[in-house]
């Protein structure tokens, strides 16, 4: 699975600009789904039909990544920018970004305004794309960029930009490829715009109107030095969400996930996340309400260019999804 993880995490796709990552996923799952289409906002929906007596199940992972959008280009060709999603200024200086057209930029900072010991606000940073002036600048106002950082295989642990949520996309791709003898119609949905508005998830769920939905996304952890308290650690298994700041997981869905993990002998941990949410928040309140849960991959340094996950957790996430889908579902 490391190949697909590497491929997906290296792809370009800030929120609202998911064309390239959508095309890549489309190619990776071609031939494995019975139907495939992109909807009005650009979410990719792949249906794998079941034997006909099961439920309609939606699995969602978001394709988009955090990034930046150019707001202004000054006379010397430096770009000012706005954040796409939750970009922390602390992670910016010296970082690199890549635009849809391949142009690469380095993030610099207004030195005059820097106060030792204080993180400058976003508007004191700029992107240097190597232009000599405004006329030669290879990017325009409104162009979006993602962060640029190579994938690293550390053995048990994997590091890349955009593990949030390409790891979820990779888990969905792998689950789709391995899914056999399933009673359910399973909709594998690769959503858009999660990092800003959750616009892809709710609109996809509206169109599908599933009996049950699971978002697959990353979550935080409490296992690094002097971390905030959180009972989730890397390598202890996929996390089954109880609640986060945007939603309370449907109790029946949560219990189903726990039951299937135990039956299959898979490690798991329960997750209560105090800050942040996922596509599950938007899906849960669509139409008359959809029983929704969330399978989370514990991840360190979320929303930095070096997000780290445990490879066993990733593989066990695929196994847990397959275990959930293998049998009839009663909530």
């Amino acid at each position: 699975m490391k190949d697909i993880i590497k491929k997906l995490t290296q792809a370009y796709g800030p929120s609202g600009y998911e064309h390239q990552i959508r095309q890549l996923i489309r190619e990776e799952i071609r031939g494995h789904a019975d139907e495939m289409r992109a909807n009005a906002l650009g979410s990719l929906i792949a249906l794998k039909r079941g034997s006909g007596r099961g439920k309609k199940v939606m699995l969602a992972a978001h394709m988009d990544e955090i990034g930046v959008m150019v707001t202004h280009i000054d006379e010397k060709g430096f770009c000012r920018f706005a954040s796409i999603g939750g970009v922390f200024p602390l992670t910016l200086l010296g970082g690199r970004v890549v635009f849809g057209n391949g142009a690469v930029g380095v993030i610099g900072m207004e030195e005059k305004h820097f106060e030792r010991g204080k993180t400058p606000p976003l508007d004191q940073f700029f992107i240097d794309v190597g232009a000599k002036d405004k006329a030669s600048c290879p990017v325009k106002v409104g162009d979006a960029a993602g962060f640029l950082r190579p994938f690293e295989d550390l053995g048990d642990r994997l590091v890349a930009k955009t593990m949030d949520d390409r790891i979820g996309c990779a888990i969905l791709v792998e689950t789709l490829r391995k899914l056999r003898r399933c009673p359910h119609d399973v909709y594998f949905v690769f959503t858009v715009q999660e990092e800003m508005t959750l616009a892809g998830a709710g609109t996809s769920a509206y169109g599908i109107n599933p009996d049950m939905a699971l978002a697959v996304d990353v979550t935080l952890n409490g296992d690094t030095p002097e971390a905030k308290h959180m009972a989730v650690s890397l390598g202890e298994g996929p996390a089954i969400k109880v609640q986060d700041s945007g939603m309370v997981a449907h109790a029946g869905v949560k219990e189903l996930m726990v039951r299937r993990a135990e039956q299959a002998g898979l490690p798991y941990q329960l997750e209560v996340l105090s800050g942040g949410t996922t596509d599950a928040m938007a899906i849960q309140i669509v139409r008359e309400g959809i029983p929704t849960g969330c399978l989370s991959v514990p991840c360190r340094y979320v929303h930095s260019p070096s997000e780290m996950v445990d490879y066993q957790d990733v593989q066990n996430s695929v196994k847990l999804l397959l275990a959930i889908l293998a049998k009839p579902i009663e909530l």
Partner: protein
Amino acid sequence: MILQELAQAIGVSGNEDAVRKIIADAVRDHVDELHTDTIGNLFAVKKARRAKRALKVMVAAHMDEVGLMITGYDESGGLRFQPVGGIDDRVLPGKVLLVGPDKIPGVIGAKPVHLLKGDESKQVIKIDAMVIDIGASSKEEAEKLVKLGQVAAFATRYNKVGRTATGKAFDDRAGCAVLVELLRGARFPFDFYGVFTVQEEVGLRGARVAASAVEPDCAFVLEGTVCDDLPKDKDTSPTTELGKGPAISLMDRSVFADRRLVDHLVATAEKLGIPYQFKQPGVGGTDAGAIARSRTGVPSVPVSVPCRYIHSPVARLSLDDFDNTVRLMRESLKRLTPDLLRR
């Protein structure tokens, strides 16, 4: 000009009746259907030129404006109030208002400069320390004149000054006026749903239900937007600039504009030599946020007339920008085909 009439009408969020009536009268003879929904949105439908209707396009502008709501009375006859929509406390003291359905003139009292002590002149007066003075001499008299929950709007006349205009509520009567002009023009090659929405300033509420009812293939949202082109000491861009043409949004706090629609607007503008500008990404939010997320999703883009000093008692816009917004929208819509929205 319809903009003048619209800007002088009062339509604080939730109280859009007067604005709706002006618009309905202005477009009635030019549309095939005209109706109001339960929340108060006005739908003006212009059917396609030909029978073949491959697209359904929604163009929306919000009728409501920011204002004040009366929340209580002082013993001495002053009215307590809270803001409706986003209003900066600092723009309020000393302003003249029209209060309630009878449009009673009132003024937000400010202490004369003669009486200021020490640092008082440097402090911002918070809204809950202000009262509206309508000349009542007691609580009882004030209660008779203005009921709790009634609203107040800024008492600002519309003025044309050269190729600019000043007035209140250009956010979003400028958008409403552009939409009226589009409805009064020729038919389009698709069913055109002009929707004048309510309650945008308090949470995009009208647009949400309107989009759900129309189920369009794509949407354009017409706005009067932030313009901060006054001199700056750093080379960082203004949100928009007066006189530089309609402002096309790419990303704000509520929505990612559909890039295909953005590119279509830009291509049309460049082909016909219509000036345009991009609104600086990341600022504000519009009805597009609610429309884009309606049902199975609607590709949307906001297009705005730049207005200096919005959400204050008076704003200024360029009449050339206004005319160019009408023109850019009309020409872009005429050239809109279903191919554009295929993935």
